[in-house]
């Protein structure tokens, strides 16, 4: 099995310091927010890898780094053994970039309202000087819209239809990898199921690889082959889907599963999780989860746990077994 995308020790820091004059007057140091901290994982070809986590866990930042929208501070992302951030051969960079596309969360913000659907969908090909004749029409039919929709404008479509247009645009340049950042969070349940089914169909038809970013565990459980759980920029657990859902090892994953609403839990009295995600500018020492962890010991506040292999699961916890 070859890894299509290989992410090693990925770290991304953002400078969130005040302006220099304020720093001088108020004697402040530079401040950094570590959005992604030492994350490593592989994505197999033709699989769906899901990143889950709450807001501020760094899942979108990883997605942006993978498509090259923002450079990593440390570590590397290799796609087909090419690292976009350090590669110098322009032809190789171009070749890799052609293979990645992205679908964003909000289909109302990610389509240019002044462009016709035909131009929106053909843009990734047109920008490279490719042949776009009939392309938009063909793709529209592939995503379940009609060819006649090509000459309409985005405002004439509902949210679910717009997301289909976004998918058609992502498919235009015939990519291998699609990074989906919360592709169905803005959609209603019945429309969400349509879009998810479409994405599954397209994956089989075109042999796509998805990096699927979501906060919704139920969606992830349906779509993903392998799942990485992020907390405060750190990968805390990574496992094949079934292993993760039947036997979560990390206390944070267990907490997430317990907190997620269930349809069969009528009047369930949950003991809600304690606390909230800490400030990413001053993360807790040691394991970032230890202030909220029910089984934390002394060691957890001092020493950051390494990733360990437990069965099929990789977990970063001193106490997991």
């Amino acid at each position, binding site marked *: 099995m070859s890894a299509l995308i290989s992410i090693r020790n990925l770290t991304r820091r953002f400078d969130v310091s005040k302006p220099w004059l304020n720093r001088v007057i108020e004697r402040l140091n530079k401040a950094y927010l570590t959005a992604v901290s030492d994350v490593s994982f592989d994505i197999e070809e033709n699989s769906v890898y899901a990143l889950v986590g709450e807001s501020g866990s760094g899942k979108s930042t990883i997605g942006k780094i993978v498509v090259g929208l923002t450079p990593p501070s440390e570590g590397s992302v290799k796609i087909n053994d090419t690292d976009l951030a350090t590669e110098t051969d322009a032809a190789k960079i171009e070749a890799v970039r052609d293979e990645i596309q992205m679908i964003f969360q909000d289909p109302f913000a990610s389509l240019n309202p002044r462009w016709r659907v035909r131009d929106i969908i053909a843009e990734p090909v047109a920008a490279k000087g490719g042949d776009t004749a009939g392309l938009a029409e063909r793709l529209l039919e592939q995503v379940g819209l009609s060819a006649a929709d090509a000459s309409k404008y985005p405002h004439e479509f509902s949210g679910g239809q717009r997301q289909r247009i976004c998918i058609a645009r992502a498919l235009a340049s015939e990519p291998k990898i699609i990074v989906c950042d919360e592709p169905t969070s803005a959609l209603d*349940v019945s429309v*969400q*199921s349509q879009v998810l089914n479409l994405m599954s169909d397209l994956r089989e038809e075109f042999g796509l690889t998805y990096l699927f970013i979501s906060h919704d565990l*139920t969606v992830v459980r349906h779509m993903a082959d392998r799942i990485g759980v992020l907390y405060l920029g750190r990968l805390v657990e990574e496992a094949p889907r079934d292993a993760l859902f039947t036997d979560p090892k990390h206390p944070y994953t267990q907490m997430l599963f317990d907190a997620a609403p269930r*349809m069969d839990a009528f009047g369930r009295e*949950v003991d809600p999780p304690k606390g909230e995600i800490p400030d990413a500018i001053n993360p807790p020492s040691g394991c970032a989860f230890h202030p909220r962890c029910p089984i934390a010991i002394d060691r957890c506040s001092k020493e950051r746990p390494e990733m360990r292999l437990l069965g099929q699961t990789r977990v970063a916890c001193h106490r997991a077994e």
Partner: protein
Amino acid sequence: MTDTPVLSVRDLTVEIPTRHGILRPVDQVSYDIRAGEILGVVGESGAGKSMTGNAVIGLLDPPARITGGEVLLKGEPIHDIPRSKLRRLRGKHMGMIFQDPLTSLNPLLTIGDQLTETITEHLNVGQDEARKRAIAALDEVGIPAASARIGSYPHEFSGGMRQRVVIALALCAEPELVIADEPTTALDVSVQAQIVALLKRLCRERGVAVMLVTHDMGVIAEAADRVAVMYAGRLAELGPVREVITNAHHPYTAGLMASTPLASVGQKRLKQIPGAMPRLGALPDGCAFHPRCEYAQDKCRREPGPSIEACDGRAACWFPLGTTQKEDTVA
């Protein structure tokens, strides 16, 4: 407690006149909420669930207006009283929790100011007493070190804490009815669980009637006692939450439940309802759901869906799904 429901909505109809005709975002909706009960209102966007909440509390934006039916608060009609009188009722008898906690708090006032303002406005107490009650209210919704945080501004709180402040604000004048419009949609899963648990606790301890508007079936299943399913402005189904979720009578409810990823665990494809909710300006003839309904028959295409009472008391459907063939209801 008396037998009169805290809130009773009878055939409520809201209309919006437009250039292209009259739209009816809420169409003959009827339901009751009793003290200490949580009524979940679910539906997709555009189903009219928020509009119903706004109509009840008298916050419809013109030109939308109530054109039919009545809203009774503890047996007293409130749908046709003057705005000034309604203003006295809001806050005192009805509290409101909105989706986005940042936009429902005033960023220029400390949360203490906002709480004491509400308390002195509606309860006959002085500033000192109001401040004490404000701290108690913050304490009750689980804000740590309430007496120290009372001078903080909304931006100094996280999203979950802000929503707690909004809940404290809605409850500080001790209303009998709380309308919570998507209170957890903007929050993370773990914080959502905290807020849902808080709402349930407050409802139980204080006997408040809660109308919980949301699109999240999981939240409804865990929090609500009864659930009302809305589609295109009308009630599609109304019943005890367990019944409605496990044994839906209306094909739309059945489709909605089946299309959540939770219902298809281990299956390759999700069940889906074809099409999308029609726009209000272009409602189909007959039952509004018939173009998407796999059980639709000629009668559904000709005649509007029956009222819930006229049917089996559960679903507004000519051919409600039977109780016998349960497996067939999800398809």
